[in-house]
């Protein structure tokens, strides 16, 4: 009889961890609220920096967990500690006894409508990074004009924003904006494409190369200044105001499409999970790791581990790496080592 490990959250973190746990000889039980696995990545079109189709990654992860127990459209209703075990109750009536739990509950995409000055949901041609990926995936949208002459990207929407309650950088938005800007320029070579940024945080492997390509091959203009106000013109275009901080002057430009790079906020459902399992929440609302340097996947409770964006903004490779290390840490914990 293989030992149970409950994995909460069926995004790429939970899938990869379940895959590793299967390989290590355990019986992972994957619990996902939604009706599909893959989380946010499953909604994405292509992944930076290699432009690999996101669907391929999700399918590969699926193939690795065909032997796992997967409960879709299922929530955790309670977590109780009984001596050395946890009793996890699910909304489908199933109860599971296990010694280890992996939390991979991910993040919530920041609700861009909260930055009212950008007019998401008010102006016809303001979309988010997620909306654009959905359109790249072939879903039609009347928000995206058929032949835009000019397109703008706003970095840091709801990230690095104390007023919005998110002091953290979402890490992936700068490179996502560069990626999406290139993709738009590929589709509409005549369009002028602008990225409005506060800092360009292109820290990952190949990210800076991507940025240079965006400038060199695609002529994408990077304007250092946060967009402060968006209005709609008589012909339905967008009037965008920012400061060109490198010129030290206010700047305005009319655009046919504005893409808001909504950042990663903590998943609000995690608060209830933390209450049930007596887990610590960090000041940013994400789950608090025991140690942010060497124990990012370790919680304050014995046998409960973390992977992915439940502890903070992560890239896909970071998430997959954490999922693997959490699986190993669970293995060591269950082996009593």
């Amino acid at each position, binding site marked *: 009889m293989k030992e149970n490990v409950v994995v909460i959250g069926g995004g790429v973190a939970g899938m990869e961890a379940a895959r590793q746990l299967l390989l290590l000889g355990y019986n992972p039980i994957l619990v996902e609220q939604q009706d599909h696995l893959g989380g946010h990545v499953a909604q994405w079109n292509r992944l930076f920096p290699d432009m690999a189709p996101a669907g391929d990654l999700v399918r590969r992860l699926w193939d690795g967990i065909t032997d796992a127990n997967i409960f879709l459209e299922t929530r955790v209703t309670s977590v109780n500690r009984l001596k050395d075990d946890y009793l996890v109750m699910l909304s489908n009536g199933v109860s599971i006894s296990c010694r280890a739990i992996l939390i991979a509950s991910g993040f919530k995409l920041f609700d861009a409508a909260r930055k009212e000055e950008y007019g998401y949901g008010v102006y016809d041609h303001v979309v988010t990074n997620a909306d654009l990926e959905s359109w790249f995936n072939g879903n039609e949208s009347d928000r995206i004009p058929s032949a835009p002459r000019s397109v703008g990207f706003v970095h840091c929407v709801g990230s690095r924003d104390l007023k919005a309650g998110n002091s953290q950088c979402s890490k992936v938005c700068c490179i996502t904006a560069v990626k999406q800007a290139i993709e738009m320029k590929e589709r509409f070579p005549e369009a002028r494409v602008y990225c409005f940024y506060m800092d360009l945080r292109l820290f990952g492997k190949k990210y800076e190369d991507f940025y240079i390509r965006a400038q060199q091959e695609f*002529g994408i203009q990077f304007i250092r200044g946060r967009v402060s106000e968006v209005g709609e013109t008589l012909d339905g275009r967008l009037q965008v105001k920012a400061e060109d901080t490198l010129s030290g002057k206010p700047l305005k430009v009319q655009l046919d499409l504005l893409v808001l790079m909504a950042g990663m906020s903590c998943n609000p459902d995690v608060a209830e999970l933390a209450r049930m399992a007596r887990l610590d929440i960090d000041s940013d609302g994400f789950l608090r790791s025991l140690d942010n340097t060497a124990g990012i996947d370790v919680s304050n409770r014995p046998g409960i581990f973390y992977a992915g964006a439940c502890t903070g903004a992560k890239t896909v490779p970071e998430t997959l790496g954490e999922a693997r290390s959490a699986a190993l840490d669970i293995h060591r914990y269950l082996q009593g080592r």
Partner: protein
Amino acid sequence: MMDFGFKLSKSATLDLDRADTGRYERLCALEPDARICMNCGSCSATCTAAPFSGMSLRKVILGLQRGQDVRPMLQGCMLCGKCSMVCPRGINTRHLILTLCRIYD
């Protein structure tokens, strides 16, 4: 016109829709590396002319992108080439400046 003792002020706003970027486009055609400037300011920090003449290659490239006349800055350049030594993106800055001078001619 009536004199009220005050007048409408000229707006300092850069209007990208009205900016004439023809010179910038011509420069990029001749010197594609003009596009990869990332505004780090190394060129201006080390520039012989900058402290005394207002020359700043960073501002020259930015100004062209915004449709501004950058000739007054260019005229301060002594063509010493120090900027090309420090540019982390390896832009041939001296050559770029000479090309730009030809565009203005």
